[in-house]
Every structure is written in C-alpha cells, then in structure tokens.
C-alpha cells in the first residue's frame, strides 16, 4: 500500500484530497496538526512514499528541508501545491508540482508516477547496499588471500581465517576444531558474548562429530572429549548478555577445511540473522583459501624438523671427524720421528734395502697426515671454523716456490711443470698459506692424472671481469667485478667428462666415481680448493676434454677491487635514523664489508658521531677501509678492553667487532648492549 502524507493549511483542500485519496483503496493517507517538531516526528515515523505540501504552509521551506535531511526519507517524493503561475524560491527542493485549481486526474497520475519513482529509488538503494557489501566482502577476501600467502605459521593462518570471517560474515559464534603440530585436537571458540558452559560443551561435541564424519573412512585420532584443549575468545566480555544453549539453533554455516585428500579441521559459524547466499559463497571461499597455505605450512614444518635433525647430524659428524683426526695425529708423531731416527742412522747403520722400506713407510706417513689435514680442513669449513689470516701478499713468489716443491715428483714421472707469468702480478689480499694450498692441490691433481712424459702449464695473468665468462664458472658465491689475477693450471692428462665437471667439487667424488681408482687421494682436495676460493671472493672455471687434458682456471680479486667496496659503502642507504649503535660482528673481514653493503646498514653521510672499530689485535681492517678513516668522522682501532671505555666516553654509530679476538667479541657486544640500554 502506498503511503501519502498531507501538509495543508486550508482544511477544505486537505479534506477534499483526503477523502478523494481514501476512496482509492490502495492508499494509506495521513495528515498532522500541531507544533512543527511533532509533525516532523510523525512524518519520520510514517515513512511516506509521497508527501503533498501546499506552498504557504507554515514554514514550508524549513519543513521540506527537514524532511529531506532525514535519511529515512531520502527517497520520499515531495509534491508542492502551487497557485496558477505562482513561483517560489525553494521550488528546486520539491520533486514535483501540482497547480490549483485541483484536477483529480492530474493528482492521481502525478501520484502514480511518483510512487513509481519512489519504488525504483528504493530498489536502487537496496541494490547499491548489496553491491557495496559484496564489494567489501571481496575486498576482505582479497586482503585475506594476500595475508594467507604471507605466513607459514599454522595458528596464525587460523587467526587470519577467523578474522576474515568476522569481517565479512559478522558471525555471533565461530567454532573451529583442528589438530596442533603435535597432532592433538584444539577447539577454538570465538564469540561475541560469553557462552554458557553447556553451549561450549555442545559446540565442542558438535565439532568433534563433524570432524569424525569428515574422516569416516580413515582411522582418526582418538578424541578424549573431556581433555580437548579449548581456546576461547570473547569479544564483549563486559556485556551482561550470555549465549545459552538455544544459540545453537541460530542459522549456521559449516565447512571442512581441506584440500584434495588432505584434511585439517572443521569450522562452523552461527548467526542470529540468517546467512544470505552470498555469505555462503564467501564462507566457502575463505575455508578453501586457507587450506592451501595450511598444506604449505605443514610441509614447511616437516621440512624444518628434518633440517634440524640433519644439521645436528652434520655437526656431530664434523665433530667426530675433527676429534678422530686429532687422535690420529698424536700417534703418528712418534712413528714419524722413529722412522726418521732409523733412517738417519743415528741409531745404528742399516742396509740399503731397509732404508728403502723405511723411506716407503715415511712417504706413506706423510700421505696419511695429508689426508688427515684435508679431513680437518673440511670439518672446519663445514662448521665455519676456518679462520683465514688475510694480509696483503705477493702471489708470484708462492707460485715459484710451488714449482720447486713439485720438481722432484714431476721428475719421477718425467713431467715438465712450466710456469709462465705474463705480467707483473699486483698484490692480493689473502691468506697466502691457503692460496698456496689451492694451487698445490691443483698441481698435485694435475700430476696425478697426467701420464709420464706429460706437460703441466701454470700460467698467470691479469684480467678484467668483462673477460671472464661467468657462465663457465662453478657456482660463484660472490659478485664478479673489477680486476682479477687469473691463474690456470693445465695438463694433458686423462681429462674429465663434461657431465662430471660439476661433480668433481663434491666431497669424496673420486671414491664414488671410479672403482678403477689408481690415483690415490680421497677426493677432498677440490672440495677444499673450491671453498677456499669462495672465501677469497674468487672463482674457478674448468675446461676439459676427455683424454686430451684439463685446465683449471682460478680468479682471485686484486687488492684494488676493495676500493670498489669502499665506494659502494659510501653510497649505501640507511633506514635506521635513530639507531645509535649498529652492531656488526663478522668472522671474516671480507664478508664484513660485503654484509654492510648488502644490508645497506651504512650511510656514511648520516654518521655524525664517531666510528669505533674493534679489530682485535690486527690492523687489517684499515687495509679495507682507509676511506672511512679519513672521512669526516673519527674511527678508532682498539682492543676490546679499551673500546668499552671508549663507548663509555663517546657515543658511536658503528662498531665493527671481530668475533675471535683476544677477549670474546660476543662478551664485548653484550657489555655494549647493556651500556647503551643503561
């Protein structure tokens, strides 16, 4: 029934329209008298479709404005009654006009058309409301899906799910039953008001039944209903309202959380207002969406458990290797000494044949200690205990020494080791002992795999990074730029199959790959070589042809490259404006600079205070960072005991600390932290 409200001054006109309209059975007509405020209240309560108002009605403009400003009447049509040719200032406020003298037909047709307009507007309004609701749900769904992908934490995923449902479906109660990482059931209850104990129990049993139902064909965990862990979250704890057992008769939505065959739990929502079809779609979308990251989370959990186990095993293995190696070295010492005494005939003369055999024993002792040394190196590399002593050093003399060292062995096989140094080699920043180890490994390999009368070429040169074919390098661990010393070791030995090349750097590869091994060694040399090259920010390349020979090319960065580090350092950005001290502890000086650069921890322009560098006892840092030292701020280089005092006296922005310095770097950092907090 259409509703009409009349606002007329003259009773005659009002009565006439009233009785005329009432004769039309499909209309409800109302008029009012009294104070304006009362009339306005009546109008708002009545919710008219059309309001007829006479120009000249008391405070006509005010009344129209008041009606329009109330959201209840936003679609209500206002028709203004005017005298013929009459005009008024607020005509634009009305939705339609009727002129006196009154014509019934005009009145009826005008009313009919405005009823239609009102209905259309109402429908439009409803549709709009639904649309914006759907849009909101969609938005939440979209946000939720990106939140889901952001975490692999199971309980967080459930929290996100519940939050999304709360936003989109405004439920009164949600009950979720899942298994935690230990496989025990957990019942999560989110309610607006405090639920009664009976309700909690009922919902719990209902969830368990649902859960079992989902798994009807499979063996399911035995639920001890009394002992299920319950997590409750009540939104309005202060309200007096309590959800009783009857709440269970609210409209509800239920879904299992599963993907494919994998089942995670059940979720059920209750709401006093019935759920709409869109709500169901939304609900299903969320439960479906959460299942995928849950599966990933489960896999991730399994993987990290396995990883932890593996790490522990790896550590045990390394420790074992290290201990065994120590224990082997001690008894080897007197054996070696005794042989030496006998061989030198200090304990009496021996026959040439005996000398021959004793020499054989001695050679093998040396071989054995070499193997032990390799095993130890490997275990140190794996546990990160390989401590390199970097210095500016000259590689040329090392290469010449190397040639001499292998001369005797090479002569035995009549192999010629040629050393060619194309340009004068600049200095590198390295642990020279380790660099010697790298090339000693490569040359001794070359000797092993080259037949008698062969040739081994050792060739050194300087190259620019652009001359290095990065694709040929074996798994490079540091960026390639600047100038490098290129040293190649080539032989014309048995060569390596192309597919085997990446494998030769694996541990014990020689043992694995050949049953017909007659070349000695345990296959650790190249593994260690690769690691040592990595530690020096270098790279290695292997070129080989079966039965023709192999070339191993080692690239080592020049000390000059370090200047590039410095420059990058000064351009780095900082995000910590308010950080007084940035702690960086690094084992290796090389890595330190790299890390600073990578983590963009340094913005030198912003550092106004002093820099303190603890470098233990060495001054090696300053080889790296002279630029910092003569910049606008001061840098200290001191031992830990002193720098604690320095910190007390001055605030500082950055502390670089070596972990293995005289006093443990860790302790110093602890002290520092306490100091800065205080």
């Amino acid at each position, binding site marked *: 029934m259409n509703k009409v409200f009349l606002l007329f001054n003259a009773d005659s006109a009002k009565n006439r329209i009233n009785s005329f309209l009432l004769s039309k059975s499909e209309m409800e007509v109302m008029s009012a008298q009294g104070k304006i405020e009362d009339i306005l209240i009546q109008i708002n309560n009545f919710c008219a479709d059309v309001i007829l108002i006479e120009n000249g009605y008391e405070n006509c403009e005010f009344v129209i404005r008041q009606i329009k400003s109330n959201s209840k009447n936003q679609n209500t049509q206002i028709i203004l009654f005017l005298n013929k040719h009459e005009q008024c200032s607020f005509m634009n406020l009305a939705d339609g006009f009727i002129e006196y003298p009154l014509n019934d037909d005009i009145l009826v047709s005008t009313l009919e058309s405005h009823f239609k307009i009102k209905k259309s507007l109402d429908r439009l309004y409803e549709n709009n409301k639904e649309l914006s609701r759907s849009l909101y749900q969609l938005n939440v769904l979209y946000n939720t899906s990106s939140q889901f992908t952001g975490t692999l934490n199971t309980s967080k995923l459930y929290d996100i799910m519940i939050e999304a449902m709360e936003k989109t479906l405004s439920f009164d109660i949600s009950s979720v039953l899942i298994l935690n990482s230990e496989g025990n059931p957990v019942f999560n209850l989110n309610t607006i008001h405090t639920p009664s104990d009976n309700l909690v129990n009922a919902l719990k049993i209902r969830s368990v039944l649902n859960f079992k139902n989902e798994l009807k064909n499979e063996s399911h965990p035995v639920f001890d209903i009394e002992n299920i862990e319950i997590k409750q979250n009540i939104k309005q704890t202060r309200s007096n309202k309590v959800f009783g057992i009857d709440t269970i008769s609210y409209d509800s939505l239920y879904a299992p959380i599963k993907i494919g065959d994998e089942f995670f739990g059940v979720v059920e929502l209750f709401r006093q207002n019935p759920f709409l079809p869109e709500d169901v779609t939304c609900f299903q979308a969320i439960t479906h969406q959460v299942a995928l990251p849950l599966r990933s989370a489960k896999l991730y959990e399994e993987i990290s458990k396995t990883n932890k186990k593996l790490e522990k095993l790896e550590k045990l293995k390394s420790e074992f290797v290290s201990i065994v190696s*120590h*224990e082997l*070295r*001690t*008894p*080897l*010492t*007197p*054996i*070696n*000494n*005794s042989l*030496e*005494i006998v061989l030198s005939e*200090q*304990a009496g003369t021996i026959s040439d044949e005996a000398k021959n055999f004793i020499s054989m024993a001695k050679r093998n*002792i040396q071989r054995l*200690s070499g193997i032990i040394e390799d095993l*130890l190196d490997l275990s*140190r590399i794996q546990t990160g*205990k390989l*401590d390199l002593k970097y210095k500016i050093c000259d590689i040329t003399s090392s290469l010449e020494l190397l040639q001499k060292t292998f001369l005797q062995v090479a002569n035995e096989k009549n192999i010629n080791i040629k050393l060619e140094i194309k340009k004068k080699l600049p200095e590198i920043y390295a642990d020279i002992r380790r660099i010697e180890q790298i090339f000693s490994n490569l040359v001794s390999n070359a000797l092993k795999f080259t037949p008698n009368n062969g040739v081994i070429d050792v060739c050194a040169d300087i190259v620019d990074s652009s001359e290095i074919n990065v694709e040929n390098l074996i798994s490079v661990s540091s960026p390639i730029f600047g100038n490098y010393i290129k040293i190649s070791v080539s032989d014309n030995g048995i060569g390596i199959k192309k597919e085997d090349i990446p494998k030769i750097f694996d541990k014990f590869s020689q043992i694995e790959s050949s049953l017909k091994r007659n070349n000695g060694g345990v296959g650790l040399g190249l593994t260690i070589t690769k690691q040592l090259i990595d530690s020096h920010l270098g790279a290695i390349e292997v070129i080989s042809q079966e039965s023709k020979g192999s070339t191993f090319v080692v690239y080592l960065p020049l000390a000059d490259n370090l200047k590039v580090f410095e420059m990058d350092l000064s351009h780095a950005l900082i995000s910590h404006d308010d950080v007084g001290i940035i702690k960086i502890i690094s084992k290796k000086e090389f890595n330190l600079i790299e890390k600073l650069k990578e983590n963009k921890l340094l913005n030198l322009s912003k550092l106004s205070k002093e820099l303190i560098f603890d470098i233990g*006892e060495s001054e090696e840092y300053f080889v790296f960072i002279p630029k910092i030292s003569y910049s606008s701020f001061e840098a200290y280089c001191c031992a830990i005991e002193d720098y604690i005092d320095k910190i007390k006296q001055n605030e500082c922005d950055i502390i670089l600390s070596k972990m*293995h310095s*005289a006093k443990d770097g860790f302790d110093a950092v602890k002290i520092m932290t306490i100091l800065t907090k205080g």
Partner: protein
Amino acid sequence: MKKILIVDDEKDIVETLSFMLKAKGFECICAYDGEEGLSLAKSINPDLVILDVMMPKINGYKICRLLKFDNKYKDIPIIMITARSQDEDKIIGEETGADEYITKPFEFSEVLEKINKYLA
C-alpha cells in the same frame, strides 16, 4: 751446551724428540705433565722450552702464560706442539704469548729450524 726442556705427556714423542736433539748437540730435560714441566722450567732455567698443549694437571697454554707473564722467565723462547689446528690462533700472538708452534705430526727438520732461530 744449550738446555732444552721438553714437556709432553706422550712419552714416545718426548723420547724420539730428545734422542734427535741430543744427536744435534743439545742437552735435553724431559717432563711428562704440566706441573712437572712448570717447576722444571722455573728451577733449571732452560734456553728453550718445547711444550705440548693438551696435558694433564696444567695445560700448555697455562704454563706458557705463566712463564711469559713472569719477568724472570719471559725471555725463554717457547715452541708449542699442537694436534688441534684451531689452537694455532690461540697460541700465536694472542693469549699465550708463545713464540712458535708446530703441528703434529712434525718433521724433525722443521723443529730444528725453529730451534735454531732462537739458539743458533
């Protein structure tokens, strides 16, 4: 004749080492644990000490530090013998103040070279 004190709980190492050093014309005094080594070092005032790291009672680091931080003995050169390569860092220049170290198993010529650096 130069006096060398050898301290190591591995009797075989001490025996072979002293045999070889004697042949090279050194006088060798031997100790088989840390305590004995320390008291001998203080009583006989040797020209050089060869010291094992891992020993019962007092370990090599400690003996080394005790001697090096005592004005009376700090000038006695100390060569440490180690089976643990990680220890190398601790021995030289850092806490102990030892002058040299040798890793097991060692060649006699290596030991001799280091001794001659101080006693030649």
